């Protein structure tokens, strides 16, 4: 959660590196930035150097993550990861929340999520493939995020591990690993499971996500 003072400080740091953006609204609830975001990134010898007109909204005093609006329809509607509502589909909130569990950093978020989103879009438009992969829509994408974090080989086993973490309240290294390997946790996924027992904030994110997954599955999404 960003306080208004934190948000103002981080915005001013961002404006030093993204000089095409400026503050278009500032209140106790949110700060909005508008203008041209310069993306200048390279991967596998393919550079993207381009300006994108965006509106960037930073909620203040709330758990809601910042988001980006494509104000001039630069993202093609046919792109499979264009928008959720009007917000660009940057990544799962799980990834972002865990990345910034010790404190949100606006400059880093813009570089790691917003710039990479536009880069991925250009790469996809050119080659028809995602350079870093993609997440499935809805809760399946959230499960995939945990699959990566927990280093599990498939989504079904990931759900088993998520349920285990959510229901068994104390870390038990000698238990059978919930991934289904038949090994003890400590000799299997212990290294990746343990942090969820050592940091209650991580556990809270997982519990909330699991509830959301149940809710979406129940609604048949």
């Amino acid at each position, binding site marked *: 959660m960003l306080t208004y003072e934190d948000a103002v400080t981080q915005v001013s740091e961002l404006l030093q590196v993204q000089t095409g953006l400026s503050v278009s609204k500032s209140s106790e609830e949110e700060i909005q930035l508008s203008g041209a975001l310069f993306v200048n*990134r390279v*991967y596998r010898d393919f550079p993207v150097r381009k300006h994108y007109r965006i509106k960037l909204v930073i909620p203040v005093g709330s758990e809601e993550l910042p988001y980006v609006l494509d104000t001039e329809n630069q993202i093609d509607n046919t792109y499979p990861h264009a928008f*959720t509502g009007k917000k660009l589909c*940057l990544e799962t909130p799980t990834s972002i929340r865990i990345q910034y569990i010790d404190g949100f950093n606006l400059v880093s978020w813009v570089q790691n999520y917003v710039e990479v989103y536009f*880069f*991925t879009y250009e790469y996809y438009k050119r080659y028809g*493939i995602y*350079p870093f992969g*993609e997440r499935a829509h809805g809760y399946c994408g959230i499960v995939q995020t945990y699959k990566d974090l927990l280093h599990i080989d498939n989504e079904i086993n990931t759900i088993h591990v998520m349920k285990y973490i959510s229901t068994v309240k104390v870390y038990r290294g000698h238990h059978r690993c919930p991934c289904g390997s038949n090994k003890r946790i400590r000799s299997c996924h212990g290294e990746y499971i343990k942090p969820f027992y050592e940091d209650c904030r991580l556990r809270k994110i997982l519990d909330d996500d699991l509830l959301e997954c149940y809710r979406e599955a129940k609604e048949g999404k």
Partner: protein
Amino acid sequence: MNTQERKNDLLQIIEHLDITPTMYKNAEEKYKNLAAYLESKGIEADMYPQGSFALGTVIRPTVRDPNAGYDLDFVCQVHAMREDTTPAELRKLIEDALTSSDLYGGKLTIHDECFTVTYANIGNYGFSIDIVPAVNESEQVKACLQQKAAYPDLISTSIAIPKKEPDVYTWLTNNPKGYLAWFNGINNPFSEHSWENSREKIFRENNAVYASVEEIPPALNRSSIQRVIQILKYHRDVFYSKYPNGEDIKPISAIINTIVVKMADGIRPDISVFDLLDFITTELAIYAERQKLPEQMFSSKYPNRNVIQIQDNKWMICNPANPEDNLADKWNEDMRIPRVFFRWCSCVHHDLIDSFKESDEAFRSIVEGAFGQKMVSDVWGEKYRPIPARPIQALHAAKPWG
């Protein structure tokens, strides 16, 4: 912005990848020595270049390895008919001769269908010679081919080469001399047009290699057709390197050669390289519609477009020198291949034609995407004001969701 200057700068990149006169001289000497060696071992054969070395469309394959040498292909056609020997015997004849040599034995790699002799670097780069053993194709097969051929006169030079099947070697018909004759028939007027300027330039840049302009071999001349082929081949290598299975799905050079030459047939031979590239990529955009339009609709909307055909629901690009060879065979095994091919064609147009309208910085950026940052920096230095881009680390990079 100066479009002509940009075109010249792009050509400079291609010239940088082309075989140098010194390397050409060396390669020629080496393959003639190889032919003389085989003769000394009692093998009566003609050794002649095929593929890019014969067609004048060589480029150094630098995408996977910036220091890669040139791969040059040759046919060793033994003076015999197909009926006189078996594919396995023919192969063994050449293999035994090469492996028994003190000179070539250590440089030799034996593959299923050819032998590779790798030479040490001359200057910055080395080169390797791939030798495909061959015999004259039987008269009976030639007669059958002539019946089906669009160019029957080309068939007489057909050869048979050993092809490895899982357990046995069989014969495969090929016709590199016929292909070269067809290629030259269309390319020669284009070549004549560029020859005077070309040889003056080669002489200016290589006066340590040649004493006079007359000494420059015409094989070093590059017509607009040959340059367009080189551009497309290099762009293809960079483009397809982004795909996990790029080597398997990229169009073979024979497809590029055939498409360019067929499309250039009948065009004014004084056309510039980039006007020809524009014409060809625009034509290819039309052919891309074959993916969606029913055949009848396509043919009536675009009459006389038969370089890339669909027959019986199958993609077809005919080898003009071998009517039984459909160069697009692979396209019919995996539908992604034509889809990515047409995507690539449209990127060529975007990168090397549309980019002339862009600002200097955007032009540089697009060309870096097309030919790779290192290649562009090596040739252009700081021209067009490159801005260093921040790399993305794949391991933790964001994946789009939602």
